């Protein structure tokens, strides 16, 4: 570590080969690693989803045993949430936040490297369990006791993997927060920040506030199992439901952690392809803050059937449906942005529009779930599965794809293949609806979730859903092909890339220099991002 003296030229040289990736402190390198990791995990989690859909293709048990099926459901969810969407957002934040606020890099680059490298190790810990006696965790991603305490050798691996993942996310969040609050270029005031940055500030706050609670919850599971405590056992004066309260105090903010940056991305893309400023910037910021606040007082809508006192059920119903108001403000603002604009429909715009429509459909079913007496019927059925895949797949994942197409030319310096991109969008959009829309009916008709086999009257919808799933899965191979093709070359991208693009990142070259802004940008170039 004698490079201390070489401080002046540290910006120009860095290690190459594997060493570069292991030791890097550069926000773009780390961002790339996050995104590639996330893509790989998407295929692992997706392969598990394919196993699920294969087993559910027809009634009867054809391919896997019930225990293994439950493992697949559990691992699928943990991987998709902690291994795909969360790392992808941190990856985007890494790439974009410094460029958007006019900084050279993240505030805490070594912590940044650390936060990333935890991920592959944490998932090794989790994936090892597939080969342990007793198999991988099979108690659902929600890990409810006492069931989860029946997990075999995988149990401590599950707990430690969650701890590890939590540490990674908290590290990543702290980094983004410190970056935004400390590294903004002169003139970049808070109310000029692009909405992606704003949504990330609030996401970061949610992460730091909620993940430690999850860590606490799983720690109690660990001590209940191995140290004789009785947090979740009535025999000792505890309560299994107590876990659910603590878990969902984390779990509900978590779902907004997954979706808030998506709101930011869409708020960047729609104005760009509308060639019109984002409608209602300030109310967008307030809406995100309101959603984040509410997200901490609605958690028990996941547990309406546990037998809470009436007052509790009413309170959580009211707060839950209230979230529709700020979310509605966002949807309406996007529509208003499109009003009297001049639109074009490149792939990022298509995915963004797909997001607005399909996410809203998911939001509607969320609202229905929030109505307590009816949730007694919906709860733990495929209606819930349909709800959260609409907000997660056509919500979070769609916006991730939109964001990838939107910024890929900036990152690589080449345009992606627009025709293939459109194919990817249309194939995905048709198949994803075939995949998840019928699940609403399945749920209403009474099909419980987390079952490997079902009664024959559910057969038709499940066939359709599975076929949609296979097509959707295969369509994602196209996504990878487009990315690889774009990274390898193609038509050169301009610096601004899109005609209507606003924001500091577009003032840099495509691809941008290794350190984004070595000296602060000219304040006059700061137009407030999407404004």
């Amino acid at each position, binding site marked *: 570590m004698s490079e201390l003296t070489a401080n002046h030229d540290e910006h120009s040289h860095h290690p190459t080969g594997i060493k570069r990736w292991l030791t890097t402190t550069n926000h773009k390198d780390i961002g790339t690693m996050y995104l590639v990791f996330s893509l790989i995990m998407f295929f692992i989690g997706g392969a598990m989803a394919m196993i699920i859909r294969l087993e559910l293709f027809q009634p009867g048990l054809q391919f896997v045993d019930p225990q293994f099926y439950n493992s697949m459901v559990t691992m699928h969810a943990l991987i998709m949430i902690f291994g795909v969407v969360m790392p992808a957002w941190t990856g985007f934040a890494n790439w974009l936040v410094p460029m958007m606020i006019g900084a050279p890099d993240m505030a805490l680059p070594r912590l940044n490297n650390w936060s990333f490298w935890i991920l592959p190790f944490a998932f090794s810990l989790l994936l090892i369990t597939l080969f342990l006696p007793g198999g991988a965790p099979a108690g659902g991603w929600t890990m409810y006791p006492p069931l989860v305490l029946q997990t075999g050798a995988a149990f401590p691996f599950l707990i430690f993997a969650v701890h590890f993942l939590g540490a990674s996310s908290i590290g990543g969040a702290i980094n983004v927060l410190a970056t935004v609050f400390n590294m903004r270029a002169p003139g970049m005031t808070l109310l000029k920040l692009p909405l992606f940055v704003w949504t990330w500030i609030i996401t970061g706050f949610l992460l730091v506030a909620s993940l430690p609670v999850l860590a606490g919850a799983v720690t109690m599971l660990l001590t209940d199992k191995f140290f004789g405590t009785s947090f979740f056992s009535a025999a000792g004066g505890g309560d299994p439901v107590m876990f659910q309260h603590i878990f969902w105090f984390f779990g509900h903010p978590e779902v907004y952690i997954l979706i808030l940056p998506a709101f930011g991305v869409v708020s960047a893309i729609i104005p760009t392809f509308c060639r019109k400023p984002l*409608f209602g910037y300030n109310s967008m910021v307030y809406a995100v803050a309101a959603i984040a606040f509410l997200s901490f007082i609605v958690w028990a809508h996941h547990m309406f059937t546990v037998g809470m006192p009436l007052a509790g059920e009413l309170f959580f119903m009211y707060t839950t449906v209230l979230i529709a108001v700020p979310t509605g403000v966002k949807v309406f603002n996007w529509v208003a942005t499109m009003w009297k604009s001049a639109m074009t429909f490149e792939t990022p715009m298509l995915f963004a529009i797909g997001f607005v429509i399909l996410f809203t459909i998911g939001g509607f079913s969320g609202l229905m779930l929030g109505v307590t007496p009816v949730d007694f019927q919906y709860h733990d059925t495929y209606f819930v599965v349909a709800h959260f895949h609409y907000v997660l797949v056509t919500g979070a994942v769609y916006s991730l794809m939109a964001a990838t197409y939107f910024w890929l030319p900036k990152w690589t310096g080449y345009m992606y293949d627009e025709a293939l991109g459109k194919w990817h969008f249309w194939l995905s959009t048709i198949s994803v609806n075939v995949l998840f829309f019928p699940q609403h009916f399945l749920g209403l008709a009474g099909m419980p979730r987390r079952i490997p086999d079902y009664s024959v009257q559910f057969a*038709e919808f499940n066939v359709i859903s599975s076929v949609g799933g296979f097509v959707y899965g295969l369509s994602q191979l196209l996504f990878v092909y487009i990315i690889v093709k774009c990274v390898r070359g193609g038509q050169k991208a301009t610096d601004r890339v899109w005609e209507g693009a606003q924001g500091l990142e577009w003032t840099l070259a495509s691809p941008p220099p290794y350190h984004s802004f070595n000296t602060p940008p000219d304040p006059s170039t700061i137009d407030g991002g999407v404004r």
Partner: protein
Amino acid sequence: MSYLRILVLGGLIFLPVAAMAEGNVNSNTWGLNLTRGVTPFSKEVYDLHMIVLWICVVIGVVVFGAMFYAMFAYRKSKGAQAEGWHENHTVEAVWTIIPLLILIGIAIPATHTLIKMEDVSNAEMTIKVTGYQWMWQYDYVDSGISFYSKLADDSNFARQRGSGIDPNSVENYLLDVDTRLVVPTNTKIRFLTTAADVIHAWWVPALGWKRDAIPGFINESWAIIEEPGVYRGQCAELCGKDHGFMPIVVEAISPDDYKSWVAQKKQGDETPVVSKGSSGELPYIASRSDQVELPKE
């Protein structure tokens, strides 16, 4: 041309809906929508469900309609010019307040229904339901009858991996038990749910609710079944490998029949009045001619 595309686009999104609605005509059981059920508030719950659903559909039509209009009217390729405005406090206030009012409109009936559902007072009889991995135990608290109820053998044989039995050949595949829960109609029954090992959830859609069965705690709920019949449900909380295989069958009979059933049960007479015996033999399909299908929509 643009209208054609609207149609195509709209069609793509609603295609699955249409297809499903069609496909459902043949399936003679629960079908495509929530059941109306057979208890006083199961119908209220159904109505609430439909109200909220239609509100969402209407809002959806308005919002998506505006979006699609914009997408066709304001395209650059058609020479549209973007305007510069990006704020209007009046409309923003309007679309904050209107949803708020709609929500209040939903919350009021929902609150009424919920209060009713939580009122277990004045029950005429009490049944304690205990979940086990993987079966149910029913204790008739007033008459002292107690028995276990688990997946019927024909389903159980067929559901084994590689059994070679086609699930379609098994009547009520996975929704049949060896011993049914027999209850009287038009009687306020208090259900006490609990569990012996892990959390389960007792759910018969026709009753209009589900309740978690939590080890060490008892949850109370109630039902008045207004129509005699056989009502089927399933465990609705992940409870381990056979979570999918612990169904529930409730048989509601007239209070008079119920009385004689109780009398018989208490004498230790295992010959069921209407329930099947818990024997292991397979072909008892004939004995199920007494089944009443759920009312159809």
